[in-house]
């Protein structure tokens, strides 16, 4: 199981260069059954990362390019009248896949966004009164451009909350960029990737993650963090209980990925920027900066 995880990480690092931490967090997010939001400038490898993960995890994959004229039916599917059968038949939309890459999600109108986000929360789709279950597992990796760019509809906080983690990729380091420039085409590289994770592996990992121990002092620490965000002047509003659950789940998964059977404060600290960064109304947009006061001021019990 750990070997599968290691080879998954290794293979992903071969494609997306110099982003070990982000890749690890992204995989952590998916193992924790969470949806992932990747935010950064165009062209830093968001789509490549999402595509790579889908391929390596052996899931059927669909990309939806969000544009300002995208309609909910373009995501969910629609009933079409078939003249030879004289009846309406539901044609499932691109969302009926195990892994959906919602590219540039903040380019679409709120109506289209909410169609996707509802599916993420319920893991089912209702079209014209009929409910269709989405495949299992179901992951959404959304990418968005920084909200200050032109032509974007920023996601409201309630919808940001649906994403377990938000990652920022950033520019690659010089060495990584040089390797990228010297190496072969990334799209072709992705096509040659082998599946590293079988569905039963994923299931076993998720079971193992549920078994990871959280000691009383650790729960104290997480509670202290939650209390601090609610009390502190740095944030407009604190972390919700759902955010607390997300933090625990992510920390447990992180501890599992570090091959530990119990969560320690470092695990919480490692996932905190990704989990809490987009849930706290920021004064600056930098996740690290947002959570920095937490890390610096909350004592580890």
């Amino acid at each position: 199981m750990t070997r599968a995880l290691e080879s998954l990480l290794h293979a992903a690092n071969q494609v997306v260069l110099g982003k070990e931490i982000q890749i690890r967090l992204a995989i952590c997010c998916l193992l924790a059954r969470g949806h992932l939001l990747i935010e950064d400038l165009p062209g830093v490898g968001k789509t490549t990362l999402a595509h790579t993960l889908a391929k390596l995890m052996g899931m059927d994959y669909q990309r939806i390019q969000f544009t300002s004229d995208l309609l909910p039916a373009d995501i969910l599917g629609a009933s079409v009248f078939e003249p030879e059968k004289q009846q309406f038949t539901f044609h499932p939309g691109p969302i009926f896949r195990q892994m959906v890459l919602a590219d540039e999600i903040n380019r679409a109108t709120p109506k289209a966004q909410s169609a996707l986000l509802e599916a993420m929360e319920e893991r089912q789709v209702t079209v014209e009164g009929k409910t269709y279950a989405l495949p299992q597992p179901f992951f959404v990796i959304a990418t968005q451009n920084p909200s200050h760019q032109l032509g974007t509809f920023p996601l409201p906080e309630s919808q940001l909350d649906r994403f377990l983690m938000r990652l920022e990729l950033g520019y690659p380091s010089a060495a990584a960029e040089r390797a990228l420039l010297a190496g072969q085409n990334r799209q072709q590289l992705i096509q040659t990737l082998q599946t590293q994770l079988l569905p039963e592996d994923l299931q076993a990992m998720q079971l193992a993650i549920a078994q990871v121990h959280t000691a009383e002092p650790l729960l104290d620490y997480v509670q202290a963090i939650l209390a601090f965000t609610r009390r502190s002047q740095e944030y407009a509003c604190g972390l919700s209980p759902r955010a607390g659950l997300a933090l625990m789940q992510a920390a447990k998964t992180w501890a599992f990925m570090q091959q530990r059977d119990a969560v320690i404060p470092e695990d919480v600290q490692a996932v905190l920027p990704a989990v809490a960064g987009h849930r706290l109304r920021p004064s600056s947009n930098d996740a690290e900066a947002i959570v920095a006061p937490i890390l610096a001021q909350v004592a580890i019990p």
Partner: protein
Amino acid sequence: MSNSKQAELASAQVFSMLLGAVGLTVLPHAWNLSWDIFLGFFVLWSWRCIGVWRPRYLPSKALLFAVTLLSLGFLYSQHQGVFGRDAGTRIFVIALGLKLLEIKTIRDVQLTVNFAFIIAATLFLYQQSLLMAAYIIVVCLSLLMTLNAIHSKITDVMLLARCVGVMLLQALPVCIALFVLFPRLEAPRWAFLNERTLTKSGLSDTLEPGSITDLGLSDELVFRVKFTGSRPPPDELYWRGPVFSHTDGKHWTPSLSNKARRHPDDLRFAGNSYNYTLLLEPQSKPWVFALDMPASLAPNLVMNADYQLITTVNPEQRAEYALRSYPHYNTGVLPPIEAQENLALPQTISPEIKNLVGELAGFTQPPAVFIQAVLRYFREQPFYYTLSPPLMVEHPIDTFLFQTRTGFCSHYATAFVYLLRVAKIPARVVSGYQGGKLNAIGEFLEIRQADAHAWAEVWLAGQGWVRFDPTAAVAPERIQQGVNIDMQLASGTVNFSLFDAAAQHGVLAQWYQTLRQGWQNVDYSWQRWVINYNTANQASFLQGLGMQDMATALRWLLISIALCTFSIFVFLMRRPVRVPDRALRHYQRFLRQLARHNLVCATGETASAFAQRVGEQLPACRAEVEQITQLYLQCRYGKQVEVAQLQTLAKLAAGFKLKA
């Protein structure tokens, strides 16, 4: 009261708790009160129970008043007053039942609970056993739970029980201080303890063996003895009771003239002595059963002319006596009046008996030889020991000696004494107890009614009164082992309870014995240390603690109550600091070491990050620091912490020294 209209009404839950607690309080009075009072109370109680759910069935004020008058009239007609234990308890119980019917507000509930505490106290007037004490604790618990429910508004019963349990535990030190130090009131217990606690069977002052066909043995406890030093062998365990000198051929009664001691100083002792304390259960007669022959007397005892101990205090109270006895003694000369008394026989002596005495050389040989001959006669002729002998109405001695030849100790003792008197040897019957069962846990002997025994005393020149036990000649095991109540249970001679009988067989027997002995030991301690803690015992105990008078004791009482209250106050008021677990304590010790060298773990810095920082600054310690950190994380956050890991962490943290 002006605010009683706005007073809070009691909820159904408070009612059910109150009714449950009150029901529990009165329940044991089923054994103490007459059935009409008991039933009357529970009728009122049930009425109230119905009223909780159907308030319209509750009595109106007028009806309640009428019921009250009726009850009072009934009580008055029964007791002609309110004095005495029974009358008082009855009034309390009925008043409690009536009070239940008029409860409406929380305030009424509180009053009723306080009243129920008094009823709980009356239970002690009837029974003072350990079991009753335990029961009353349960009653108090339930009453306090009701009070607590009113005030705290807690509805969870388990939580209430926990709160009240903690409260009772907090009250325990004060309770002990009050018990030990508060002046004991010397209440005349016999005035309010009824006869139920007293012995029903027991030794009688008349012996009439022929009229008994079935010796009713009970396992009722008579007294307990604890020896300091060595214990006598079983064949010396004769506990002396009334002595029978006078007979009319059928009945045996004590000497008619033994009211005063006639020979105060001719008892001479020899050999070793046994010291013991004797805890006598309540008796109807003032007899104290000392080991033959008692020498030093407790101040409240006198010895009568038959060397029997008589207590001068009320025998209906449980009492403890410290005694010393010598198994070897000489009673000296026999005054003529006593000799005459112990030779006297009814007018007619049958020729068969005269023949028998002649055959056994009673008229020719010295007394010692004749006694041996009689004992041999009992042993060699077909005499049998039984607890169910046939009835011997006319001439019981003749019938026993020549026809039935079966009987128990009294038959043998009386026949033996009779034969000796025919041979002109002074002899008399002594009754009392023989043997006793050793409680292995408490190391004391328990003597029960079943150990009752009768033996003979013969006056021999130069030796005084000498004990002979003719029963031993027939049934030596009776003397060696005592009347083994268990053996008799097994043989079906006596039956006390199914459980006792069942316990004789099978694997349960040993457990049962151990349990029984353990329980009896606890009960012994309870009786001895708690119930028997009276003015005299308290005074000597307090003197042992260095408190000479009551004023000092009361001062100490106030001091100890103040101390208890203060410590509970401090305990309750302390800041609720979360106790860091042991791993954290060890780790903090390690941190203190590092802090001396300005290596301080920052707020929010993880242990691993700190370890890395320390490792960079002090490469010499890196391995050790990392090991301690790993162990700490394992112990503090890990799933299963092994004791060994914690110990290693403690050792490493304690031994950690900085290496430059």
